[in-house]
């Protein structure tokens, strides 16, 4: 793996009058409640270690009070840690002087807030250009750039409105445009879509995914909504009471929850919508490589199955049932396998979301072949493995 763009090591945050004095107790492993009772200090974050790669959407997930909003504010030091290291692109952020920190915030990161954080006394276009204004960019230049981003997020025509004249979704688009307008490499999104209603939220999620395909920013996204985390995240970290309980790719979280806490979370997720075929398919058991009907039937009898996937040098060709081979057997034994004996079945793509292939899987008696864009057989998806994965979500 390449060096991470952002790396956090041994980060602790304790809130209270003299946080340093309780660090020993925190490290001894006393619980949050014990420390609160003993010293009146609140442990916000405890021994956080995480690495974020360039260009990924890294979702930090947790319920309210889990410390996720505290954590994201450490990335640009809106909150200073009690202890720990924070490296961004090779720079030790904790060592920056106040001036350097301002420059760092202006150029390296931009932020989108849960409650938008727009300036009510500035028009939409002035809000979008705010970051550039802070950098000292001339008004004409920043208006031109702000205009571009405003069009990108679909708010053309609203330039001279004030934020209070816009709906919540529109306001957050302004917030997003403001964040993108500075061209910062890293985007911090603090529950950016949580205040929006579900329909607008999923619209905004789509827009973010679409933008990310073009821009390849490094996005740190905070949410309390696992569905949102699974939808957006390349990697997901789950926080509980200020501790990182699990970190991994979405399907790892979903299929192998590390603790009861994560499991309880994962239980209610709509797996059919969150998982792709790739994550649940099994290796294709019955590959038929023989070329004639006779030898194919022989091969099939060896693996004691009544179906097989015919694969030749050109890749996956089709599904063959034992039945149809036997029907064709006496007279065509030496004929090559051809479309006549193939079953009338579409192959499925490894990237499809499970939800979209449920009907096909249920309609056929044998597992569906999973074939990638190059035409290679990647695996198979049976009714039973689908049922197993989807069924587990309800139990």
């Amino acid at each position, binding site marked *: 793996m390449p060096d991470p763009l952002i790396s956090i090591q041994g980060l602790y945050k304790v809130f209270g009058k003299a946080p340093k004095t309780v660090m020993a107790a925190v490290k001894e492993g006393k619980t949050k409640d014990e420390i609160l009772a003993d010293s009146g200090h609140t442990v916000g974050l405890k021994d956080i270690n995480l690495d974020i790669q360039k260009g990924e959407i890294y979702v930090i997930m947790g319920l309210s009070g889990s410390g996720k909003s505290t954590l994201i504010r450490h990335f*640009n030091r*809106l909150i200073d840690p009690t202890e720990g290291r924070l490296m961004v692109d090779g720079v030790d952020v904790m060592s920056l002087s106040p001036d350097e920190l*301002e*420059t*760092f*915030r*202006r*150029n390296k*990161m*931009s*932020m989108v*807030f849960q*409650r*938008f*954080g*727009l*300036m*009510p*006394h*500035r028009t939409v276009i002035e809000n979008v250009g*705010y*970051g550039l*204004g*802070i*950098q000292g960019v001339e008004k004409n230049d920043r208006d031109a750039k702000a205009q571009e981003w405003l069009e990108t997020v679909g708010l053309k025509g609203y330039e001279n*409105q*004030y*934020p*209070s*004249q*816009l*709906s919540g979704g529109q306001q957050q688009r302004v917030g997003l445009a*403001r964040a993108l307008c*500075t061209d910062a490499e890293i985007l*911090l999104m603090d529950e950016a879509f949580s205040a929006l209603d579900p329909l607008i939220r999923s619209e905004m999620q789509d827009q973010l995914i679409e933008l990310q395909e073009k821009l390849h920013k490094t996005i740190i996204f905070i949410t309390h909504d696992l569905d949102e985390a699974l939808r957006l995240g390349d990697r997901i970290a789950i926080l509980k009471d200020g501790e990182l309980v699990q970190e991994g790719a979405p399907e790892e979280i979903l299929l192998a929850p590390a603790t009861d806490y994560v499991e309880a979370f994962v239980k209610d997720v709509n797996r059919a919508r969150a998982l792709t075929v790739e994550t649940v398919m099994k290796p294709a058991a019955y590959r038929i490589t023989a070329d004639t009907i006779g030898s194919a039937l022989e091969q099939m009898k060896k693996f004691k199955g009544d179906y097989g996937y015919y694969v030749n040098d050109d890749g996956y060709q089709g599904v063959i049932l034992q039945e149809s081979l036997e029907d064709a057997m006496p007279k065509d034994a030496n004929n090559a396998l051809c479309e006549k004996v193939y079953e009338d079945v579409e192959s499925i793509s490894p990237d499809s979301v499970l939800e979209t292939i449920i009907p096909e899987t249920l309609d056929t008696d044998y597992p569906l072949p999973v074939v990638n864009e190059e035409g290679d057989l990647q695996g198979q998806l049976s009714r039973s493995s689908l049922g197993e994965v989807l069924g587990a979500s309800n139990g």
Partner: protein
Amino acid sequence: MSDASWLTDFPQMDRADLLTIRKTLDGAYREFSRSYGDLIESVFDPLLVFLVWFEKFLLASPWWAIIIALSALAFSATRSWKLCIGVVISFSLIGYFGMWDNTMRTMSIILVCTFLSIALGIPIGIAMARSNRVQSFVTPILDVMQTMPAFVYLIPVVMLLGIGKVPGVIAVIIYAIPPVIRLTNLGIRLVDEDVLEAATAYGANASQRLWGVQLPLAMPTIMAGINQTIMMALAMVVIASMIGVKGLGQPVLKSITNQYFTLGLLNGLAIVALAIIFDRVSQAYAVRSQRHLKGGHNA
């Protein structure tokens, strides 16, 4: 002591001791004002020059020019014809009843006091909003300034600077400055944390936060403070006239001593007219400068 009179009478200090304290303090202050009075007076000389010039300027300007200027100002601030007509009528009446010159004198001193109060008060308010220590130090001083009877702090001011315009201005400012300080402090402290955090996250430094976010968002509150300051300055006109400030206060003072009811009433009404005009103009200006507050979805 064997007698138990302390149970019924409060055990008070010896009269002789009290007298000594008074004499010492008074003597010390008199000494101070004798040795530094001239110096302090000379510090305020530029202010006096300006006050005299401004008063002369208002008095020398033709009455119609002043009425036109005032109604134009009122219109540009409020966009209301009603207020404009009000200005014309009330100033015409003031002139007709022979109070023009006194009104100009009062207006000149009120405008200067207001300007100085804003110039001093807003920075003090900002400093208070930035530091809780400054706030806990300044707040009790403001409490004293607002509740101490004006006559009490007039004594040392007059001892130091004699009677005249400058001590008058100082007395008015002491009385009128607290609202603008308090409301500047309050306004800045009430600025939405989220907005300020956003500014910080985008790398705004302290002065960019102050000028770009805090002051503009605190402006409605600060304007309310300025409005209060103007009103309180006008209320001080009569008291200031006791230490030689010319204007509408002096005829009022004369009416009190001589029981001239009508004279008092007319000059009192002129002060009220000034107050109402200043109030409406400054409030309307505050509202108009906050266009973004007139919300309305997709208006």
